[in-house]
């Protein structure tokens, strides 16, 4: 009896770690492949093509090719902060929201910029143009209703506003 139980536990002691190790290996392999297949590395670059990987921003990408800022700024130049920590914080937060929205297909269309990202954008405008506009806008954004550069200059980044409406919602069909 005792000998048998001891043999069993010895057996379990040997194979359980192996199974776990194999499972971890499979996970690492699949996760690594998925990351590669989803072009995960491209998101660490500043190549504008990466922003249209999932095609949701294809129109913005296309529009940027013809827009006035094409020669002087890429997506990341306007839409990401300049400092390391803030930049990767913004990348992580946007990356999470975009992946979740695209995978679950539950985001609002036409897509709209969110408050935090609008603040980053405004800071980027001022980053280049502050010398010219400092009389017009204060750098501080304590006033939520402060007018933003793109309120009027809406087309400088990616041309006319053009988006896609989403798929039919349930409440649209009887």
């Amino acid at each position, binding site marked *: 009896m*005792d000998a048998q*139980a*001891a043999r069993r*536990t*010895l057996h*379990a*002691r040997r194979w*359980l*770690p192996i*199974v*776990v190790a194999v*499972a*971890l290996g*499979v*996970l690492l392999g*699949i*996760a690594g*492949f*998925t990351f590669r*297949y*989803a072009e995960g590395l491209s998101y660490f670059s500043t190549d504008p093509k990466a922003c249209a990987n*999932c*095609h*949701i921003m294809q129109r913005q990408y296309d529009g940027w090719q013809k827009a006035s800022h094409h020669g002087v700024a890429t997506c990341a130049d306007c839409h990401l902060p300049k400092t390391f920590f803030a930049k990767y914080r913004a990348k992580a937060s946007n990356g999470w929201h975009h992946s979740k929205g*695209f*995978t679950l*297909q539950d985001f609002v*269309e*036409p897509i709209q910029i969110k408050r935090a990202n609008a603040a980053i954008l405004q800071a980027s405008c001022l980053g280049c143009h502050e010398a010219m506009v400092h009389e017009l806008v204060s750098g501080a954004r304590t006033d939520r209703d402060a007018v933003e550069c793109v309120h009027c200059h*809406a087309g400088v980044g990616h041309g*006319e*506003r*053009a*988006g*896609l*409406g*989403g*798929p*039919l919602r349930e409440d649209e*069909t*009887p």
Partner: protein
Amino acid sequence: MSATPPRSRRGLYVAILVLVTAITAGVTALLINIFERKAEVRTPYVRVVEVSEDDTDPAKWGKNWPAELDSYKRTAITTHTRFGGHGGNEAVPEEKIVRDPWLKRMFLGYAFSIDYRDRRGHAYMLTDQEATQRLTKPQSGSCLHCHASIMPLYRKLGDGDPFKGMDATSKLTYQEVSKMLHDGGAIHPVSCVDCHDPKTMALRVTRPGFIRGIQALAASDAPVPALASIAQWRTGARDRAYDPNLDASRNEMRSYVCGQCHVEYYCSTKLPLTFPWGKGLRVEQIESFWDATTFADGAQFYDYAHQETGAHVLKAQHPEFELWNQGIHARSGVSCADCHMPYMREGATKVSDHWVRSPLLNVNRACQTCHRFSEAELLARVDVIQQRNYDLLQRGGQALVSLLDAAAAAKAKGATPEQLAPALALQRRAQWRLDFIAAENSMGFHAPQEAARVLGEAIDYARQGQIAALAALAPAATPSATTPAQGSAAAPSPAQGSAAPVPPARGSAAPAPH
């Protein structure tokens, strides 16, 4: 004995195993999801059946393009907006001529005074036509130019030439052409093949009526600010006729395919189906085209003789394409499909919504892709435009009824046709303009200022006509009293309008409550 591992360690291994298994399953699901999205982009459609020019059944095309067919089938869903779409019950749309009695009065002597109902979606265009009481009067086979997917029959009747085939159907009755289609075994309302090339799926126009009409427009010198490819063609060698399928831009095609049917035309038996664009697309340009058109017997063109007054009047069909051409959206390069069939997303791909319907039911995709305002705000803006148009339209209806009253009374009291002629010429002008906006399906939205201009002229001509009819009865009427009303064959010049007498202010001209 000492070899027995602690139970907790074994439990830990099992817990890790379960966790890793769950995560692996999740990551695999994500991988498959990414794979599917990528596949959607790479292969927008799979051609599982071959389709040809003779396939008018949308179900067959739907095997290759299921998303488009799905949305096309939704045109069977009942929709209505404040001014459009069907009131009435699920089966039968409401009668417009009951809701607005002046419409019935205006159409007396024409089949539209028998039955004229609210529209339904594309899915019903054929069955509603087969059911209308207008068919109790003789109707031409030309009607099926638009109400059925008819190109194979046109080619058959014309020995391969659809233009000849179309001309042949104008001499046949509606019932004869309808029977040919039913006997052919495939009678469908507007179908994929009417707008898409079966080989490439590219947009193309097929309807002979449209092609002739747009060629006549291109050959004229009427300004076409919204149709750049026509202006471009005019500057070229002009050694061949304008060909929309060759010359038009992709964006123009997104309006042309709709313009094959949503237009003003003549479709009775005395002439082949005609799109009246040879002098331009504006209301008075089309009027002067009709005024200059004669029947085989040499008489001036008219659609029907008004039952009460005997005036030879015009019936406007539904000139959406023409009115859109006068508006700011057309001028800004916004096509019909941009608002009525906006792009929508399906996974990682985009498709045109083939559930053709009012943009007011689809503000998010139709309007907000360009206009940065809330849905409520955009709807409110449209409502202001349409309400103003509706009020003017009703006022126009009242004015026309006053003209008909005065002309009928003059006739009853023995006014001669010569005495009545000026009033009847003005009836033709007034009615044409009023009907142009009443029959147009946007309640003025496609070109608000143009619609108001046209209605303003309609009201002015109606009141001038009323004065002319009253003058016809007056025993001591001097010739000068009727001078402004002398209608010539050509369209009246704007200067003539300014010299016209001011119609008397009357309380009865207030818009009728609805």
